[in-house]
């Protein structure tokens, strides 16, 4: 069954097209990777899908709800970890988590917080004001805030940005466990991360979808046996107008 059906999704800023006629279907329980060079339109796509930005053209339907017609319904079933860390600085880690659980109407916010605190090993900092945490720790809290709502569709925009290797591996573990339970769209600039985690991967440049498939398929398409080389090859071919 399909979780996300994107049709002709387009975003223009003035005369500049940030996302250009995107067509994409993502299955329920799929972990979908969105890759692309800086400015390719990944964040803009995620923002349209999470009703933060209105599409100029086209539409996307998330579990039966159109982002154009039923944004309020969409917002109930999604959760987003934005590219920038987004926390309430003067709340403690636990308060931040419980606050998000409350606004999503989770029945037992404190129990839900216990769970993500354990998943992300946040115990030692749970009662610290979030602004006193290091950048990487704030990042972990910000991602944990997206997960506490137990969404049906989860958007992770460069979740591992600024995390150390251990924290990144830990997050991979958390994501692995969520796989199949919810539909996830993940963007990242770490290609090994996309290769390790994602069921399917799409590569965007200049707002357009250039290639899509499993990591294996993309390597074959590019004729490379290493995923990073394949990505570079595809991005370069797209730049030359060959894709």
């Amino acid at each position, binding site marked *: 069954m399909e979780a996300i059906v994107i049709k002709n999704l387009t975003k223009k800023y003035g005369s500049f097209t940030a996302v250009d006629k995107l067509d994409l279907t993502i299955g329920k329980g799929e972990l979908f990777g969105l890759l692309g060079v800086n400015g390719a339109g990944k964040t803009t796509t995620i923002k349209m899908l999470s009703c933060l930005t209105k599409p100029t053209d086209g539409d996307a339907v998330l579990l039966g709800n159109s982002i154009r017609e039923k944004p309020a319904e969409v917002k109930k079933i999604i959760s987003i970890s934005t590219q920038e860390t987004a926390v309430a600085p*003067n709340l403690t880690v636990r308060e931040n988590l419980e*606050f998000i659980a409350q606004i999503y109407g989770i029945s037992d916010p404190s129990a839900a917080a216990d769970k993500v605190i354990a998943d992300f090993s946040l115990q030692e900092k749970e009662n610290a004001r979030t602004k006193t945490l290091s950048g990487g720790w704030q990042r972990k809290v910000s991602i944990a805030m997206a997960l506490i709502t137990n969404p049906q569709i989860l958007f992770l925009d460069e979740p591992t940005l600024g995390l150390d290797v251990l924290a990144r591996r830990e997050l991979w573990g958390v994501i692995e466990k969520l796989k199949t339970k919810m539909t996830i769209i993940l963007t990242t600039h770490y290609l090994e991360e996309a290769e390790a985690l994602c069921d399917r991967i799409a590569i965007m440049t200049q707002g357009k979808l250039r290639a899509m498939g499993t990591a294996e398929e993309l390597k074959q398409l590019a004729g490379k046996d290493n995923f990073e080389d394949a990505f570079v090859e595809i991005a370069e071919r797209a730049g030359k107008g060959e894709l």
Partner: protein
Amino acid sequence: MRITAFAKRNIKELLRDPLSYVFCLGFPVMMLLLMTVINKSIPPQANMTVFRIDNLCAGITVFGLTFLMLFAAMLTSKDRTSSFLTRLYASPMTAVDFIAGYYLPLLILAVVQAVITFGVSLVIAAIEGVSLSIGGILLAIVTLIPSMVMFIGFGLFFGCKFSDKAAPGLCSAIISAAAILGGIWMDIDAMGGTLAKICKVLPFYHSVNAARLAVDGNIGEAGTSMLIVLAYTVAVAVLSVVAFRHNMNKDN
């Protein structure tokens, strides 16, 4: 549920900033004490009573509210620039949740602030042997509720429209306008001229005037001032709501 959760968060955010206490409580109380000392050094023959505690308390309370406006602006603009609001815009929070969640806690803090400022004034009045009625003060706090909403509205509006660098600057303009043109430090009625006219077109003088009349037990004369403040309150509140909704609906 969402409103309560967001209101609680906002109150925590404000109360955990030590500067809130310095500006919103420390400053008005310090002014009360300072002006009382100055008042003592004014010879009785000068017949100048603006600085006497019964005249002073209403103005200083309004002065305190202007700082609450500053904190309202900083809270909203920081939430916006830090992408915290972006995350919430993608949540089930509705415009009503946001607006009530910002206004309510600030309104509670404004009432608490007024109670404390008037409370300190009562103590000073008792020490100075000036008569100050508790009934009048309670009535003054009620007459100040529209002003509280107005100042919070100014804060939210600036916070919605300007960055966390620019918003405080704009707030200081309002703080100065309120302090100078609000008749907190001078007797506008005795002044006359163009400046007095300007003062009476702006809401600040009327906020102070209505509360002062209430303190003096002359609430019956405060009708015009109350109406003018109310009109500004409605306008500013509408502006702040429009600005907020606009932010919600634009590209985030």
